[in-house]
Every structure is written in C-alpha cells, then in structure tokens.
C-alpha cells in the first residue's frame, strides 16, 4: 500500500541545522529547510492518509505505543483538534495541555514544562506559542523529542502551509507557475510566511495584496538579494486588489485581527472591507475556477463576504479535512522514519 511506499522512499538525505539530526529530519519548525523532493514526499504520503480518512473504520495501528503531546500557549481549537484527530487515527496516545496566556511567565517555565514532557516520554511535542521562535528554543534544548511547530507568533505555521499546498494540488495539480494571491494582513501572518516558502519552492507566482500598513515591504525588497531571504519563487506586492486578482488561480484570504485597527494600522474595519474584502464581484476578476482558501476562523463580512466564504469556489472545508491528513503524514514520517535514540 501507499504508506509503505512512502516510507521506503525515506526522507531525502539533506540539511543540517536544528531540524535535522544525522541527516534525518527530526523536527518540523518551518518549511524553509524543506527541499522540493521532501515536500513532494510529504504530499504523496498525505494522499495515502486521505485514503485512510476515507475508510469506514478510520483507524490504523501505525503509531501504536507512541505518544503525542500538544502544548498550546494560545487558544486554538481547530489546529489542536486537527493534530489530536490525526494522532488518534494512527493509534498514538494524545495528551493535550493548554496553558493560559496569563500563566505564561518566562521561557524558563516553557522549557521547564517541555522538559517535563520529555521526561514523561513524549515522542512528539506539538507546540503553539505567541512568541516567534519558541519551537526553536525547544528543539535546541530537548534531546529526545520531535517538535512540530503549530504556529509561533508571526513567524511560521508549516502544517497550515502544507495543507494549503496539498489542497491546491488536489484541485489544480502542481502550483508551478500558478498565480496565487495572498490577501490581507501579511505582516502579522505566520500562515503567509510559511506559504511564501512552500509556494516558492513549488514554483508558484505569489502576489501579496493588502493595505501598505499590513505589507512586509522589506521582506519583498530583499528577496533574492540575500541568500536567506524568504521564498525562492516569484513574489510581488500589489496594493490594488483588482490588479492583484486579475487572472489569479488561487486566492488565500487571511484573517484580519481586530487589534490592527486599535494599533492604528487601519482606519476602520469598514474601510478595510470596502477596499480589500473578497466578494463575488472581485472574485470574478480571477480565473473562473480560481480556488478560495482561508486558514480560518473567518470574519465573514470583513475579509471575506459570506457568499464567497461558502460559495462554489471555496475549499475552506476541504482544507480542514486535508489538515488532518497532512498532520497524519508528518507524524507518521517523523515517528516511523526517525530512529529512536534513548
């Protein structure tokens, strides 16, 4: 079956740095250290996982005896439940730990908590944290645990970007050369950053669109001039939504946080919606079969109109299902391909 085939392919030998150990991937911290071949392998393993999800009895014994711990320092039901579902379908044991933001004191307590999880013999720790780089701190200081980044500050959300890629590929095949518009608050979006890596690696043409206060201009200006600047593909900025959407294959709508208005980055949500809401009229500027993605939860009536959110081109529900399959694939690959060293 496909699962075994994927496993036989193995993780490509590559890379040094934090995510790798003895040439093998140990952590998933972002997509910036993925090769195209590795990405393809994750996506094809996800196909096999989709097949498991389609069975009448959604259970595989693959990860029996393995334990997955989710540690969320930010409230997020969707992502946590998705990981939990993925782990349980593969028969891993799951422990969920949610830490109230108010009790987050300092990183030492973060490390302390995670060292405890290590001592409890967790195999994988899935972490979400409001501070960029928190998963890197863990990966650096924990000896035996694999770390999966479920979102760190404005930095990265690799599993979301993978499921976005998978969803695009499912409908349109390879995103190579496709015009993908990332619409909204790009500056504060970890989803956008990880997607820039993932889409860039797969050869998509990315257009960032939003008001000038929510566009990371410096990121785009330094692209290609620096060895480590974000993404490897074609990226441009277009602040006028009509031009951005013209001929687009995919529109990724980002969630607009209400705090942006309070921080003075926006005059009002009303004006934001007037200028940047993806509605039916604007979506008509994109290609007829253009896909609409949203990482959720949606503010309907702000960044997206209800008609588009639930319209024929919206794949938001499929994204959720694919999210489970992607996370199954990553857990499977990390836990079955990585030799345990005790």
């Amino acid at each position, binding site marked *: 079956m496909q699962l075994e085939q994927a496993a036989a392919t193995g993780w490509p030998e590559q890379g040094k740095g934090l995510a790798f150990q003895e040439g093998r991937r140990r952590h998933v911290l972002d997509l910036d250290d993925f090769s195209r071949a590795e990405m393809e392998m994750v996506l094809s393993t996800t196909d096999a996982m989709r097949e498991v999800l389609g069975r009448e009895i959604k259970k595989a014994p693959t990860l029996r005896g393995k334990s997955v711990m989710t540690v969320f320092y930010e409230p997020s039901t969707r992502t946590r439940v998705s990981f939990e579902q993925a782990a349980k379908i593969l028969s891993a044991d799951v422990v969920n730990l949610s830490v109230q933001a108010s009790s987050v004191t*300092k990183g030492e307590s973060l490390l302390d908590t995670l060292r405890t999880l290590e001592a409890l013999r967790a195999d994988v720790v899935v972490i979400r944290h409001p501070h960029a780089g928190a998963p890197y701190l863990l990966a650096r200081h924990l000896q035996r645990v694999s770390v999966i980044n479920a979102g760190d500050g404005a*930095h990265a959300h690799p599993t979301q970007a993978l499921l976005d890629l998978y969803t695009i590929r499912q409908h349109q095949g390879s995103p190579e050369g496709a015009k993908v518009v990332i619409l909204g608050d790009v500056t504060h979006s970890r989803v956008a950053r990880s997607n820039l890596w993932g889409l860039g690696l797969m050869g998509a043409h990315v257009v960032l669109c939003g008001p000038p206060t929510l566009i990371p201009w410096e990121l785009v200006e330094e692209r290609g001039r620096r060895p480590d600047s974000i993404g490897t593909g074609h990226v441009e900025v277009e602040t006028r939504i009509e031009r951005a959407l013209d001929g687009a294959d995919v529109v990724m709508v980002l969630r607009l946080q209400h705090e942006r208005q309070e921080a003075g980055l926006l005059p009002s949500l009303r004006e934001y919606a007037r200028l940047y809401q993806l509605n039916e009229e604007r979506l008509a500027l994109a290609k007829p079969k253009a896909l609409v993605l949203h990482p959720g939860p949606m503010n309907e009536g702000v960044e997206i109109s209800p008609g588009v959110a639930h319209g024929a081109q919206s794949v938001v529900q499929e994204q959720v299902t694919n999210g489970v399959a992607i996370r199954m694939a990553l857990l499977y690959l990390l836990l079955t391909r990585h030799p345990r060293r005790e």
Partner: protein
Amino acid sequence: MVQALMTTEERPHALLLRGGRILDPSQGLDVVGDVLVQEGRVRRAARGAWRGELPSGCQVIDVRGLVVAPGFVDLHCHLREPGYEAKETIATGTRAAAWGGFTTVCCMPNTDPPLDTAAAVAFVLERARQQGVVRVLPIGCVTRGRSGVQLADMADLAKAGVVAFSDDGDPVADAHLMRQAFSYSRLTGLPIINHCQDKAITREGVVNEGWVASRLGLRGAPAAAEEVMVARDIALAALTGGRLHLAHVSTAGSVELLRRAKARGLPVTAEVTPHHLMFTDEWVLGYRDEGLRAPAAFPYDTTTKVNPPLRAQGDVQALRRALKEGVVDAIATDHAPHTLLDKLCTYDEAAFGISGLETALGLLMGLVQQEALDLPTLINRLTAAPAAILGLPLGTLKEGSPADVVVIDPDREWVVDVAAFASKGRNTPLAGATLKGKVVATLFGGAFVHNELAMTSGH
C-alpha cells in the same frame, strides 16, 4: 571568578616595559621604546631604550613584539550594583574591565535604586574604592527615578562625583523636560548622554526593522526611531548650549545628523559599540561572519538581542567610516551583563544586552585586520577620545599621568570561553569564537590588575 584569581593585584615599586611598540594617541606617539612606571605614575614613555638608572627593585619585562598603550576608557557600561548583583557587581565588573584592558569605566545609573541622589553615587564610589580594581566613574540620572517627569538634583550629583547625566535605557521622552535638562546641565558643564530611541515608534520591537525581522516574524524597531530623537536632541542642544553625547549610535542616518551637527560647531559627541561595528542583524538569523571564526549558531539566539538592535550592513559600514573620520568620537562597550535565565527564554522575553568588556579589544582588532581602521586610530578611540569627552587627564602615557597601561598582543589568537569570564554576564554571541588580538596585561595606577605576560614573553 577564575579570572579574578589569576589576576595579580600587586604593585611593584617600579616597572620597566622593555622594547614594545608604544602607541599613545594623546601625544601622537607611535614608536618602539621603553616605558618606565614608578610609584603609580608614568615616568617615561618614549622612543628607544631607557638609558637612565633603573630604580632599585625595578621589575623589567620584555614586551618586544607587543603594543603598549594607555588603559582604555569606557564611557558606557552597566555594573548593575546596587540592585542587580545577580547580573554583575562592582567587584566582578571591574575585573572584567581589567581583563579587557579598561582602566576607567563609566557606569550607567539604571541600578536599583537608580543613581539619582548624592547618597547613591557615594555608595558606588565607596564600593568601587573597596572592591573595584579599576577606576569607576558614575553617571547620574537626568530625571528623578529615571521616570522622565522631574529633573534629578543635577548639581548635587555633580558635586558627588558624577561625570555625566543619562537616563540610558529610558530616554527622556518629554521634549520640554529634555530642553530644561540641557539648559540646567550648563551649571555643571557635564554632558547629557542620551540613549536615543523614540519608544512611541519602537513599541515592542526587539530587532532591527528590516528583512531579517520580517523573515523571523519578530517585531522590528526601525532606524528612524533612533534618528528622530537624535535630531530632536541636536536641536535642543543647539537651542540651550547644553552638551549632548549620543550613546551607542547605530544607524547611518544618525551618523549623518551627527556629521551635520559637528559641521555647525555644536557641542555634540558620540560613541559606538564594538558589536554595532562588527555584527549585523543577520546574526539573529544565525549567520556568523567567517572572518570571526565563530561557531555556527541557531536562529533566535537571544545573545544577539541588544538595544539598540544590531543593524543592517549599510549601517555597519557607515559607523565604521564615521569612526575612522572621527565623526563618531569614541568606542564604548555598553557592557550589559545578564544572568543565564534572563536569556534562556524566547526572543521576545529575553533581556536586552551583550556582555562586552572582555571581548571588546579582540573583536575590534577585526577592524584593523580588515583594514577598516589603523591600530593607532583604534587605540585613540578607546583612550584619548573618550577621555576628552570626559575632560579628564586619562587615556594617556604623558609623564606624570596615572600609570594606567595596557599591553596588547595583536597576533595572539584566543577562544572566547564564557565560563572563564570575570564578568557574571556570559551573554555574548561570541561564545566559542576565535578572536585574534588580546589584552595580555593591564596596569592600573602602576599595579597589575590583569597579567598573562609570562605566557607571552616567557619572562
């Protein structure tokens, strides 16, 4: 405290440093010759061998191939005492200074309590006299409690012995109050040292605003936040006639404002730190300059978190040029020691600061090796230039001066071993790096406060 144990705090009656390259920018001196120190003062520093009679009991040390220079003067460091003794004390901080070649250190007043009263200043001076191994010159607060609301008793502080005023990390935000501070400070003749940062702009910024910040999803502090306040303070100094000294300038824009202010003849001076001259914000990504031979690092290494943040390559080039031309007058370490726990956390939570006294010279020698600066100019920026800002007869080997002397081995390679630091602060991105150029001995008032000469000269 390992270093402190290695330090021999003995004061020979007389000492002859024989055959070194004497570099004393205060006299334009760059010659090979002997330096004679007697009874705590420089008796002779000049070309050629000392042909006079050696004082009885005079110790003679061969320093051929080494550089002999005045002890360094640091305009900006944090000794943390009173209040933060877990980070540093006057005892450990001054030993770190001695190890780094600094014989005079000006300590910032952001202690607890802050140095906003004569009594607090007297405590620091007394503690330094009892436990310090180099000269400590306190800097007093501009405002009471460093709160930016009401001026501190500046004349009282001056009488107690402060050499400048600063609220350092919490710059005076109220432009009206800053104007009065400049105006009132004229009573004392002392400069106001301002850490220029408009916090309304930087907000929660933790790194330089730019592609690195955005790449890592960290909040940025733009160069403009510094430049806005530099421009304000220059205008206020011009208005009042008060003296302005800019702490740790870090941007190309600040350098341009400074250049124009100096061209107008305004009483403005500035300092730059070794880390802003040698590191860029790419260090936060984990990049390391191969020239420094530092071990590869990880992204989000909190030892790179410092305020002002490490800037872009263009800023580093502008700072180097400004230092060479004298637009930026002096080098100051902004030595900011922290405990392990202050840095063992996420980047957002980590304390700002780099422990810099012990690596300063070794790091700065990179400028000489890369031919960005010649050695006499580098020594000037560490000695005569900062002494001139203080208006004190330090940083010189003139006859009769205090015998504050450093001996430098410009070719000595050494590995930065933070576990062996005299400072309690091991927070430096240079841990494990190999540096070329080292202070091998430091004399303070004619006494060795750091000495590994035997290892160098075989004496």
